[in-house]
C-alpha cells in the first residue's frame, strides 16, 4: 500500500480550542447533577444521577442490562428529555458544547444495510453546523482518514458498512467519534460481543485518547474492561451505587448491589485475573 502521510497522522486536529479553564488535567469535562429520566407511564429509568468525568480520564460506567446506562447517555445528550437535573459539559449545558462532544451509540441502533461507505460514516462525525450545499473539506477527510488509521480500518474506507464484521462495525462507530475531534467521548457498549483480543485493541485506543487529554465515559456491562482499563468506575443500577477509582469501587459488596446477585467473592487480584482471562464473559454469577 502506498505511503500516505495523511492517513498516518497520529492525532485528529480539534477545530475549536477549549477555554483554558477547562483544558487542564483534573478539570471536569462532564458533570451530571441530580439527573432523572425515563419513559412516560413507566417508573424512571434513572434517578438522581450525580457524576463527574475529569479531563484525561477513562471512566467506566458499569451496570447490568437494563440498569439505565443507555438512558443516562441519552438524557445527557438530550435524546431523552430529563425529568429532573442537568448535564454540563466543560461548564456549559451539553447542547451548547455539541462540537466538543462525540457519542457512539450501540451498534444495534444503526442501520448497517444502508448504502454508505465506511468513510461516509466516519465523515458524519465531522458535522458541525447547517450550511446549505455543504461539502466535506480537506480537513474533514484528513481527520476521518486519521481516525480510520487509528482504528485499523483504513483499508476498508470504501467498503459498504454492511460488509464489516461486528468488531469492525464497532470500530467504525468509534472512528466516527474520534474523527469528531471532540474532547469528551460518550461510548455506549463499545465492547459488547467482542472477543478478548479485539477488546484489548479497543482499550488501547481509548487509553491513547485519554493520554491525549480526552475525557471518556464508557458504558459497559463487562466488568473485566472496567477493572483492567478504567481509571475510575461508576456503578449504576437506576442510581449511582458507587463511584471512584476502579480499584476502590469494584468491591464484592458494591458489585453485588449493582448486579443484584451474588458475585464471585475472590481477592481483588484473583478477580482481575478471572475476569480478564479470554473466554470469560465479564461478570460471573454464582447462584
Amino acid at each position: 500500500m502506498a505511503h500516505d502521510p495523511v492517513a498516518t497522522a497520529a492525532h485528529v486536529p480539534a477545530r475549536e480550542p477549549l477555554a483554558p479553564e477547562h483544558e487542564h488535567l483534573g478539570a471536569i469535562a462532564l458533570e451530571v447533577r441530580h439527573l432523572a429520566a425515563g419513559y412516560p407511564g413507566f417508573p424512571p429509568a434513572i434517578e438522581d444521577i450525580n457524576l463527574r468525568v475529569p479531563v484525561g480520564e477513562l471512566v467506566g460506567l458499569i451496570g447490568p442490562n437494563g440498569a439505565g446506562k443507555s438512558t443516562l447517555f441519552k438524557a445527557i445528550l438530550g435524546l431523552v428529555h430529563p425529568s429532573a437535573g442537568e448535564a454540563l459539559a466543560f461548564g456549559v449545558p451539553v447542547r451548547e458544547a455539541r462540537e466538543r462532544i462525540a457519542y457512539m451509540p450501540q451498534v444495534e441502533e444503526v442501520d448497517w444495510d444502508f448504502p454508505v461507505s465506511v468513510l461516509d460514516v466516519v465523515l458524519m462525525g465531522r458535522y458541525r453546523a447547517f450550511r446549505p450545499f455543504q461539502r466535506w473539506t480537506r480537513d474533514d477527510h484528513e481527520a476521518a482518514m486519521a481516525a480510520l488509521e487509528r482504528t485499523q480500518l483504513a483499508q476498508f474506507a470504501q467498503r459498504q458498512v454492511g460488509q464489516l464484521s461486528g468488531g469492525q462495525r464497532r470500530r467504525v462507530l468509534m472512528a466516527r467519534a474520534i474523527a469528531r475531534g471532540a474532547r469528551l467521548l460518550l461510548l455506549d457498549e463499545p465492547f459488547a460481543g467482542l472477543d478478548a483480543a479485539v477488546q484489548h485493541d479497543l482499550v488501547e485506543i481509548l487509553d491513547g485518547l485519554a493520554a491525549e487529554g480526552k475525557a471518556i465515559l464508557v458504558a459497559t456491562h463487562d466488568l473485566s474492561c472496567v477493572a483492567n482499563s478504567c481509571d475510575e468506575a461508576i456503578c449504576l443500577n437506576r442510581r449511582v451505587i458507587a463511584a471512584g477509582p476502579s480499584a476502590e469501587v469494584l468491591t464484592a459488596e458494591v458489585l453485588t448491589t449493582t448486579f443484584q446477585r451474588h458475585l464471585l467473592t475472590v481477592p481483588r487480584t484473583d478477580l482481575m485475573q478471572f475476569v480478564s482471562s479470554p473466554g470469560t464473559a465479564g461478570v460471573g454469577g454464582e447462584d
Partner: protein
Amino acid sequence: MDAIATWLFEPYEFEFMRRALLVLAITSVVGGVVGTFVVHKGMAFSGDALAHSTLAGVSIAFVAGMNVSIGALVAAIITALGISWTRERARVSYDTAIGILFVAMFSLGVLVISTRTTYTPDLFSFVFGDILGVSRSDVIAAAILAAGLLLFVGACYRQLLFVAFDPAMARTVGVPARFFEYALLVMIAVAVVVALKAIGIVLVNAMLIIPAATASLVSSRFQRIMGLAIVLAFIASVSGLHLSYHAGVAASPAIVLSGCTLFLGGLGWRRWRGRTPRPAEARAAA
C-alpha cells in the same frame, strides 16, 4: 434501420407524446431521488399511503371546481404532516399512523366522489393515470415542483443522509432530525404529485420504489443508486410509453411493468455477479 427509427421517433410527432415524455423525464428524476430515500428508509408504505391520500384533495378540488393538482398536493402534505403528528401524539407505531391517515384520507375522497351522481372521467384519470391527457400547465407545474424539490435535496443532502442513516447521532451533533423526518415525508408527497397525472394514484408509488430498488441491486453507494434509479426510471418510462403507443395498451401499467422487468433483470445480474467474484474480493481471497 428506418423501421427502428420510425418505431422510436414516430410517436413524438404528436405534441401530446412529447409532453408525456417530458413529464415522465421529470417524474424519473424526482422518483429516482426521493425513491432512494424511501427504499433505504423502509418507507414504501408511506409512498403508497401518500399517493392514495391525494384522492381526498383531488375529489374535493374537482367538486369545488379548483385546481386538482393543487388539491392533491395539499392533501398529500396534510397526510405527511398528519402521519408524524399522529405518531408522536398517539404514541403508535409509524405503520399504524400511516394506516390510519391513509384510509381516512382515501375514504374522504371516495365519500366526496359518491356525492356526484354522474360518471366523472376526469377524476378517474387521476386514479389510473392519463399520460396522454397531460397538459402544458401540468408539465410546467411538475417542473416547478421538481425544481423546488431538487434544490432542497441539494441544499440539505448531507443532513437528509445523516438522518436517514443514524437519526440519534444526527441529533447529538445538532442536526434537526425531526424537521428532516417531516421534510422527507413532504418530499414523498411532492414526488407523488409530480407523477400523479401521468401514472395515477394506484400505481404512482411504483415510480418511487421500483427504480431505486433495482438500482440497489446493482450498487451499494447512495449517490450512485440515486443516479442509476433516475436512468432506470427513464428507461422504464420510455419503454412503457412506446409499448403503449404501438400496442395500444394503457401507458401507466406498461411503464410499471417495464420497471418490474428491469428489476427482474437486476436480480438476474446480481445472481450472476454473486457467482463471479468482484476484483477486490478476488484479491482479498488470494
